[in-house]
């Protein structure tokens, strides 16, 4: 045996064994070690995020500009048709900021969920050949969605400054809270759905439809006061409560409260007095509870993911 070989053997003898076998779903310890494993692969995560961003527009000549054209087109559509033609802007001050804020946060959520759902399938080439903590793929989708979100958030802030509506108040703190809640729920769903999608490809299409549907279940193109009018004043306040149980709705309201200055003020549009938005009661507590429930959901989703990922390589 050569010296090099002996040296290697000696080193190997000191290493602990890593073992793989059937995983148990119930151990929370499994969650902790999975998190640790993923943190050990930060470099890889970083690379995968960049890959996702790069390959998305790789063969297009406008490249990243496309990631701006889409939301701006949506803004235009909602601003013109919902705002002006259907008249929603008459009840919502600074409608453009309001809609763009909604679209920005919604864009983050829907991108995390849709890209996350298909993330395992799109990375089949890697999954079939190498061992990795597979959570990394949905997480890379979260990362690239966050990157796009950051750009749009930048535009949003610039717009508020340009229009003289920069929301300089403590309410601005609602913005990061809302974003964090959206990330929590988006991540949980991305983990869960990406794993299910391997076994049942219909999940992907189901998600697309659900995203279309849920767009209208959050105050994005209509304001929270509209919901209050439609429920409380008709004696169906439980419906409003139900609405707030949707984590994205409550985050959306918090986001608006933070970034959309006009929402917290009384404004006059075309002679009509628009009162400040009737922000929900106990909003802070609601947000805290929503976040905690979301974290539990993440742990559960990861455990299910861990259980299902054992057979990924053979199913895709």
């Amino acid at each position, binding site marked *: *045996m*050569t010296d*090099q*070989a*002996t*040296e*290697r*053997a*000696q080193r*190997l*003898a000191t*290493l*602990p*064994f*890593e*073992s*793989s*076998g*059937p*995983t148990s779903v119930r151990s929370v310890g499994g969650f902790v070690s999975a998190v640790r494993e993923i943190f050990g*692969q930060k*470099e*890889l995560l970083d*690379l*995968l995020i960049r*890959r996702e961003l*790069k*390959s998305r527009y*790789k063969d297009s000549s406008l490249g990243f500009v496309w990631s701006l054209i889409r939301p701006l087109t949506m803004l235009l559509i909602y601003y013109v048709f919902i705002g002006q033609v259907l008249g929603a802007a008459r009840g919502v001050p600074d409608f453009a900021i309001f809609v763009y804020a909604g679209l920005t946060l919604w864009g983050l959520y829907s991108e995390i969920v849709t890209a996350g759902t298909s993330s395992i399938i799109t*990375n089949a*080439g*890697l*999954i*079939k*050949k*190498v*061992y*990795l903590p597979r959570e990394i793929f949905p997480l890379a989708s979260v990362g690239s969605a966050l990157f796009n979100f950051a750009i749009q958030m930048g535009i949003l802030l610039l717009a508020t400054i340009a229009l003289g509506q920069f929301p300089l108040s403590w309410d601005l703190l609602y913005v990061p809270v809302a974003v964090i809640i959206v990330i929590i729920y988006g991540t949980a769903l991305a983990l869960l759905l990406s794993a299910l999608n391997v076994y*049942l*490809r*219909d999940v992907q299409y189901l998600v697309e439809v659900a995203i279309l549907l849920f767009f209208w279940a959050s105050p994005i193109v209509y304001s929270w006061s509209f919901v209050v009018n439609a429920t409380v004043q008709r004696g169906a306040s439980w419906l409003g409560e139900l609405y707030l149980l949707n984590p994205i709705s409550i985050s959306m309201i918090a986001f608006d409260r933070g970034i959309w200055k006009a929402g917290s003020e009384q404004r006059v549009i075309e002679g009509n007095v628009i009162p400040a938005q009737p922000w929900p009661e106990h909003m802070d507590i609601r947000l805290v509870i929503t976040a905690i429930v979301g974290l539990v959901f993440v742990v559960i989703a990861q455990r299910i993911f861990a259980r299902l990922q*054992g*057979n990924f*390589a*053979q199913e895709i």
Partner: protein
Amino acid sequence: MSSPAPESTPVVVRASDVSKRFVIRKDKSLKERVVNFGRSNKHKDDFWALRDVSLEISAGSTVGLVGANGSGKSTLLKVIGGIIQPDTGIVQRRGRLAALLELGAGFHPDLTGRENVFLNGAILGLSRKQTEQYFDSIVEFSEIGDFIDTQVKFYSSGMYVRLAFAIAVHVDPDLLLVDEVLAVGDEPFQEKCMAKIREFQKEGRTIVFVSHSSAQIEDLCDRVVVLSHGEAIFDGGTVDGLEALRESFGR
């Protein structure tokens, strides 16, 4: 016991009673599942691709894994590599692993060769700096030249394997799993790979080698494991192993 002193040849892979069952569902979509709901068991075929395989591989050895088509060789390699989980049994492993499984490494088709080198480096646990150090010799070994900046989806299968092999042997693995990938390389490249594998043997690295070429097995391996219908029916010397392989074909 007359086993060699543990510090000279530590065990690198230990598989105990590993079984793997595949369930083949013929219905993937929701519609088909709903339609076949009541009869879903009829629509499942399952069989054991691996049955109670136990195996210990000690550092520095080169194990040839042989068997007829469909006997479970690739499945066993994937289980050892942690890419699929066994249904029962446990696989323990230590040291850095590089795997070349069935046509190619884990490449991302949309990325260029260069980007894939860094991706694979990161997967194998190298930092960006370390990969940068190895980069030039990887490209040189693979001989793919300027194609390194082409997306790998435009590579020929030989080029693909060249790059994959070059990466796998440059990341300083302790354990190398090779599944038939060399067959698509041209002759000079196969020679080069063989030479590299011999060098690896001298450096005390462990190699598990799947091949249908008895000549290559005889040439490289010091131990042969024969699989037949998911069971390890032989484990021992190369010559006897190849004999057992020939006998197993009839079954």
